[in-house]
């Protein structure tokens, strides 16, 4: 799949390929080719260094973007998946289990958007039901009991909006995760690898450290939904994305996340391996750094971190 703004690059690539076929030994053609290659490279840089927020959202949603499964398979030396909420069911939209990442035994959790039509449908495109959030709660408790750090890979368009989800207490399940996250006595770190949308994402990323891939986004609401509500026009999603300040740069700039993990030129889907490696390095570095922190300090710092965030000022002008 090719995003609109990727089109000129694709054209370049095709022309170069074509010339190669014609070229043969001819010297000036080879010169032409290398000139084009420089132009292509320049175009790539120009386009990708100037992606609009909404274009980044599209990159974050790119079907070929590496997802939970790719990270799990590449970063975990071993992964022993666990399942079930012990109340109602097992939700394939979120997966988790015991994993070895670098020198660390951890509880690894993530939204599973799947890799093909079947697995995408089965994973409900990464939109979890209450069973999913309750399974995650079980994983938080397991990590607390065995003093294992928690690593979360966030990639969701949001908690699922459906009848069953409401009947079984979607809001209650998310709230329980946030309460558990707040008091968990081990390091909890997350990386937003694609979409980080709404409470469904927050229930899994209100953590001690948040890394964010360059083209991923974090938002209280999907740009399309925001546009149709505020502007009464879904077509103005790009404006909404702009207004919501949802890019990694915005988040880092506002002190919401701790790190922007750079993506290869052209986005993660153009070079999954290097992207996954970059995320892996970040996770390992952070795990190493936090592994000796005592539970009380972790909770204290976590408390201060989230207690602080807000866009408000007191009468006397100082931030609330």
């Amino acid at each position: 799949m090719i995003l609109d703004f990727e089109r000129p690059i694709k054209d370049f690539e095709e022309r170069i390929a074509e010339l190669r076929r014609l070229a043969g030994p001819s010297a000036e053609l080879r010169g032409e080719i290398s000139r084009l290659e420089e132009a292509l490279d320049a175009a790539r840089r120009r386009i990708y260094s100037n992606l609009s927020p909404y274009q980044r959202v599209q990159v974050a949603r790119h079907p070929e973007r590496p997802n939970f499964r790719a990270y799990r398979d590449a970063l975990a030396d071993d992964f022993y998946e666990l399942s079930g909420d012990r109340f109602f069911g097992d939700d394939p939209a979120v997966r988790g289990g015991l994993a070895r990442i670098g020198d660390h035994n951890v509880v690894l959790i993530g939204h599973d958007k799947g890799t093909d039509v079947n697995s995408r449908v089965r994973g409900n495109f990464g939109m979890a039901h209450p069973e999913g959030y309750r399974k995650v709660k079980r994983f938080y408790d397991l990590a607390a009991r065995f003093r294992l750090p928690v690593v979360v890979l966030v990639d969701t368009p949001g908690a699922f909006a459906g009848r069953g989800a409401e009947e079984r207490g979607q809001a209650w399940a998310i709230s329980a995760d946030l309460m558990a996250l707040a008091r968990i006595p081990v390091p909890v770190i997350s990386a937003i690898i694609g979409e980080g949308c709404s409470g469904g994402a927050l229930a899994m990323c209100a953590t001690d450290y948040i890394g964010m891939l360059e083209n991923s986004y974090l938002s209280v609401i999907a740009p399309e939904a925001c546009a149709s509500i505020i502007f009464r026009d879904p077509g103005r999603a790009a404006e909404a994305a702009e207004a919501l300040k949802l890019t990694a740069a915005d988040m880092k700039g506002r002190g919401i996340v701790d790190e922007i993990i750079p993506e290869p030129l052209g986005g993660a889907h153009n070079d999954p391996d290097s992207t996954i490696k970059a995320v892996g390095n970040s996770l390992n570095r952070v795990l190493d750094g936090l592994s000796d922190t005592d539970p009380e300090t972790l909770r204290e710092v976590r408390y201060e971190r989230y207690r602080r965030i807000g866009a408000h000022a007191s009468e006397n002008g100082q931030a609330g």
Partner: protein
Amino acid sequence: MAARGARGALRGREGWRIGIRNWLSKRREYSRSAPETESGVGPMDSVFTKCEQCGQPIYEKDLRARFNVCPNCEFHYPLSAPERIRLLTDTGSFQERDGGIFAEDLLGFEDYRQRLEKARAKTGLDDAILSGTGAIGGRQVALAALDFRFIGGSMGSVVGERVARTIEFAGTEELPLIIVSASGGARMFEGVYSLMQMAKTSVALSRYVEGSWPYVSVLTDPTFGGVTASFATAADVVLAEPGARIGFTGARVIEQTTKERLPESFQTAEFQREHGMVDRIVHRLSLKGDLERLLGFLP
């Protein structure tokens, strides 16, 4: 018929996804029938109004005297935060805390400032919340009430901050905590700051519940989104007003996305009680008495 009509109106009031303009426009329907309050709604031009639920005429003063509950069909109309606190606290016992905290438009979001000014003028409140301490049947409590008239009771930084401060105050002063919610959910105009108020109120609450003082959450019409998915449901006891719409995503959005027609009762307080999410349905005029009884059992 009346029910469906009201349902139609209720639908419009469900959840942040449906949106603030919507709530505001709906709110005006209430302001017609809503009584004059200290909280800044202008004086009524008409002496009586027509109940949107049962269609019967109601005298403004009767509605006022019954805290916006229809004398005829008992339909519970939204209640402003100041009126809510007047309903619940012993006369003269309420003392506001954490006033003078105002939202900043850090995102520079299209007409957020104007909306804030309008809402402040209309309600006389700093934001969609009134919080402080008061006595309920002589028992000192920390309490907060959200106000739906203020940008749909949406949780922005001020709501999050004042809820967190109320929780912290209850913890340090060893007081029971009572929060009455009425909210469409997150306040989109504050983007991620709004989202993060869910985390803020949750960390505060997770520390409070390490103590042994009770937290009672009261869900009123409507309570959705980020409020339901954070502090409003993480309570020891969850009460709800009759007919209140409560959930995460509003029914209209669910019908749009899943193309499924949802039953009349969907997401009502009674529905949530059936599904094990709410302890009791409490009539507004019994709420103070219920809280007194409840607190009487607890530390």
